[in-house]
C-alpha cells in the first residue's frame, strides 16, 4: 500500500516548548500514517483551549467550535457523513470535557463512531492554570487548597459505563500511538485520555505526572454495533387528512362560537375536533383550539370551536354562543366566560345558577365520562338544527375510533327526542 501524506503541514507546533499537546499531535500523525488514512479522510473537530490551536498545522478538514461542545458537533458530523471511511476525531482538553460532559456521555451511550482525544493536562492552561474537574487532589493542594478534598472525575470509567466501545487512559509517552490506533480502528465511540504536562501552568515532567495522576493507565474494550443514520423518504403529512369537497353553499346560517368544557381524558378535544370537521363537511369554515393545564392528564380540558359560513380570522371566543359543559372541572374553568345570551348544555349533575339559559341533560349517565361531550354536541346539532347530523356522522366515519363514537350520535338524538 502506498504511503499516505502526514496530516501535519509543518513540524513547528503552535504550543509552548515541552507541551504534551506536541507529543500527542505527532503520535496522532504517526498513527494515521500507519493506518494509511490520508488527511482528507479525517475531520478533526477541535475544542476551545490550547489543544484547539492544532487546526492551523493540520492538512485534514478542521472544525473549530465552542468550548466543551466538540463531541456534540462531531456526533452530528459523523451521522451526517454518508461515507463510513471518513474518520471524525475530537481533540479536547480537561476543561472542555467537563463543560461538555453530557455530550461525551451521550456520544458514548449512542456509541457513535468518533474518536475523542482527551488531552488532560490537569489544569486550564489557556486562562492561567486554574484547576479543572480532572485535576487530582495532590495538585489541588498546591493550586487550590480548599478544593483538595474533592476528587476528580474518572472520565474513562464514565464513558465506559455509558456505552463506549473503547475507553483508555495513558500517561503521555510511546504507548499513546498504539492506543490511538486502536481507538481509530474501533467502530463506535472511542476515547483516549492522555495525561500530559503543561509546562506553563501544570506539571512539567513525566515523573511528576506518574506521581500526581489519580487514576491508573487503563484500557476498556466493549465492542458493539455503533449507531448509524439513514435518510429515507417518508410519506406526506397531508396524505391521510380527511378531506371534504368544497361546496358552494352551507346550511350554516350564521357564525357559532362553541365552548366544550370537561375534564382531562374525557374526550373533550376529540369531540371538538369532530364538531369542527362536521362544519367543514357541511361546507362551512371551522377552527378548533384546545386549552388545558400544563399537566395534560389532570384537571380541566376546554375545546373552543368556531363554525362560520365565511373564513375565520380570530380564533378566540369572547362570548360563546353555546357552552357544552360536562364536568365540574369544565364548569369551574369556563363559568366566568358565559353570560345570559349563552346557551348552556350541561350535565344535570352540575349545580348551575338559575340566571343562565340552560338545558340540563343526563350526559354522563347516558354516555359515560368519555362520551358525554360528543353526546352533548349531537344533542345541540339535533335540537337547534344548526347542521345536519349526517355531517357529524361523516366526520366520525374517518376517525380511528368511529365504532365507539357513532352510538353517541344516537344517544344525542334520543335526548333531543328524535
Amino acid at each position, binding site marked *: 500500500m502506498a504511503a499516505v501524506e502526514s496530516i501535519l503541514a509543518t513540524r513547528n507546533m503552535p504550543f509552548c516548548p515541552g507541551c504534551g499537546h506536541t507529543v500527542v499531535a505527532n503520535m496522532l500523525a504517526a498513527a494515521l500514517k500507519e493506518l494509511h488514512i490520508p488527511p482528507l479522510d479525517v475531520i478533526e473537530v477541535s475544542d476551545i483551549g490550547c489543544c484547539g490551536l492544532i487546526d492551523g498545522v493540520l492538512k485534514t478538514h478542521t472544525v473549530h467550535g465552542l468550548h466543551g461542545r466538540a463531541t456534540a458537533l462531531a456526533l452530528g458530523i459523523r*451521522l451526517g457523513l454518508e461515507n463510513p471511511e471518513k474518520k471524525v476525531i475530537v481533540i479536547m482538553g480537561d476543561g472542555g470535557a467537563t463543560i461538555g460532559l453530557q455530550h461525551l456521555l451521550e456520544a458514548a451511550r449512542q456509541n457513535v463512531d468518533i474518536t475523542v482525544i482527551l488531552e488532560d493536562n490537569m489544569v486550564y492552561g489557556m486562562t492561567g492554570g486554574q484547576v479543572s474537574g480532572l485535576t487530582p487532589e495532590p495538585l489541588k493542594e498546591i493550586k487550590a487548597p480548599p478544593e483538595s478534598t474533592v476528587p476528580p472525575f474518572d472520565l474513562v470509567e464514565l464513558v465506559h459505563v455509558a456505552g463506549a466501545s473503547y475507553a483508555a487512559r495513558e500517561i503521555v509517552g510511546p504507548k499513546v500511538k498504539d492506543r490511538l490506533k486502536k481507538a481509530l480502528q474501533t467502530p463506535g465511540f472511542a476515547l483516549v485520555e492522555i495525561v500530559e504536562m503543561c509546562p506553563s501552568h501544570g506539571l512539567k515532567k513525566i515523573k511528576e505526572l506518574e506521581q500526581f495522576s489519580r487514576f491508573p493507565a487503563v484500557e476498556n474494550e466493549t465492542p458493539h454495533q455503533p449507531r448509524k443514520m439513514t435518510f429515507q423518504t417518508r410519506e406526506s403529512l397531508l396524505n391521510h387528512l380527511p378531506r371534504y369537497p*368544497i361546496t358552494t353553499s352551507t346550511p350554516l346560517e350564521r357564525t357559532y362560537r362553541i365552548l366544550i368544557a370537561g375534564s382531562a381524558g374525557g374526550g373533550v378535544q376529540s369531540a371538538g375536533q369532530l364538531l369542527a370537521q362536521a362544519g367543514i363537511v357541511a361546507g362551512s369554515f371551522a377552527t*378548533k383550539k384546545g386549552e388545558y393545564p400544563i399537566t395534560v392528564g389532570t384537571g380541566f380540558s376546554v375545546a373552543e370551536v368556531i363554525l362560520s359560513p365565511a373564513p375565520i380570522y380570530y380564533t378566540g371566543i369572547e362570548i360563546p354562543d353555546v357552552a357544552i359543559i360536562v364536568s365540574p372541572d369544565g364548569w369551574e374553568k369556563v363559568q366566568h366566560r358565559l353570560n345570559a345570551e349563552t346557551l348552556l348544555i350541561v350535565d344535570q349533575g352540575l349545580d348551575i345558577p338559575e340566571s343562565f339559559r340552560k338545558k340540563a341533560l343526563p350526559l354522563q349517565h347516558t354516555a359515560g365520562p368519555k362520551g358525554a361531550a360528543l353526546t352533548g354536541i349531537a344533542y345541540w346539532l339535533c335540537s337547534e338544527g344548526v347542521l345536519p347530523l349526517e355531517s357529524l356522522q361523516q366526520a366520525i366515519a374517518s376517525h380511528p375510533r368511529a365504532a365507539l363514537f357513532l352510538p353517541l350520535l344516537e344517544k344525542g338524538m334520543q335526548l333531543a327526542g328524535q
Partner: protein
Amino acid sequence: MNTSAKTRTLVDGSRLIIEALAQAGADVYVGYPITPANWLYAYAQQRFPAFMAAPDEITALQWAAGFATTGKLPVTATSFPGFALMLETLNMMVMMELPVVIVLSQRLGPSTGSATTGAQGDLLLLRGAISGGYPIPVLTPSNLKDCWTLAGEAARIAVALRTPVVLLTSKEMVMTHHTLNVEDLPAILPVKWPLFAGDEGYQPYKVQDNGVPPFVPVGDSRFQVRFNASTHDATGLIRKATPEALANTRRLREKIIQHLPEFTYLEYHPGVNKQALVISYDISAEAARQALQEMAQEGDQPGLLVLKTIWPFPAKAWAIIEQYQHKIVVEENLSGLLAELIWGNRLPETVHPINQIGSLITPTQIKAEVRTWLQ
C-alpha cells in the same frame, strides 16, 4: 349544494410547517420536546428523512450544526427556555455560516412561565441574539398559508445565505386547527445549496459577489474544508482581529442586509385615508384582520400592515408606516416589543400600543383603540 374537485380539511400550523420544510429538502430534525413546540416535534418524527432525539437543547443545536457541515439541512423547534440554551450555538452557526431553521413557538414567560399559554415575548431577544448586533432572518407566519410558504422560504434562505433562520410563531398559531383549502397550497421549491463549482482554489470563506461563500461539505476528497466559530480569515483559520478577518466578520451582517429585499414579506391593506394604521404579526394579526373586517362593515377603513419578515426590519414596511398619522401596534406582551423594535424605547405620541399578557388580544380591543384615532 354544488361541489367541486377541490377539497377542504382541518389542519394545524405545526403540520403545515413540518410538511413544507420536508418538501423544501430539510434532511434531519434534531430536537428536545417542549410545549408549545411539541406538535412540531411529533410531526417531524413521522415525516423527516432522519430524526434525532437530543438530551437537551444545547446538544440539539450542536448536533444540528454538525449535520449542516456535511451538507444536510437541519431543523429544530423550541420555545423560550430551550431557545435560551441554544443561544451560544446559534452564534456559532452564524460565525461558521451554517444553515438551520429554528421554529420558535412563543409561550408566556418570564422563565418557564406558562407552557400552554401563548405569547409574543421573544422578538427583542431575536434582534439581539447575536453578539455584536449581527442579524439573523426572522420570518413570522400569521395564518395557515404563511405557515406553509414561510417555512419553505425559511429553508430556502437558510441554505442560500448560509445562515440560521428563525420562524417565529406562537402557541395559538401552531396548535390551533383551521380550515384549509388544500389545493390552494403553492408548490414548495427545493432548497439549492450554493455549492463550489471550481476545480481548484477553494477557500472556505472566500466569497462571491452575493456575499455568500460557496459551500463544500466536510469530508470532501478534493478540498480541505474548515469551519470556524472564532474570528477567522478566508481560509477558515483563527485570526486575532486582522483586517481580513474583521472584513469577513462584517460580511456576516452585510450578506443578510444585501439580500433582505428578496425575503421581505408583508401584507398590506391600505386605509381609505392615512389616519390610522394597525400593525401586527403572528397570531395577533388574525385579531387585527377580524377587527378591520368588522370595521369595514361598519363604514371605517383604517390600514393594516401584517409583518411577515420582521427582522431585519424591512425598508418596505417603513415606507408604508411613514404614510400614516397614527400607528396602532398589536402584540401579546407586556411592554410593546414590536413597537420598541420599530421606534426605540421612547415611542412617538402617534404610536399606540395594544398589549396584553395571558390571553389573545381581541378584535373588540383593537376596534376600540383604532376608533379613538379615526376621530
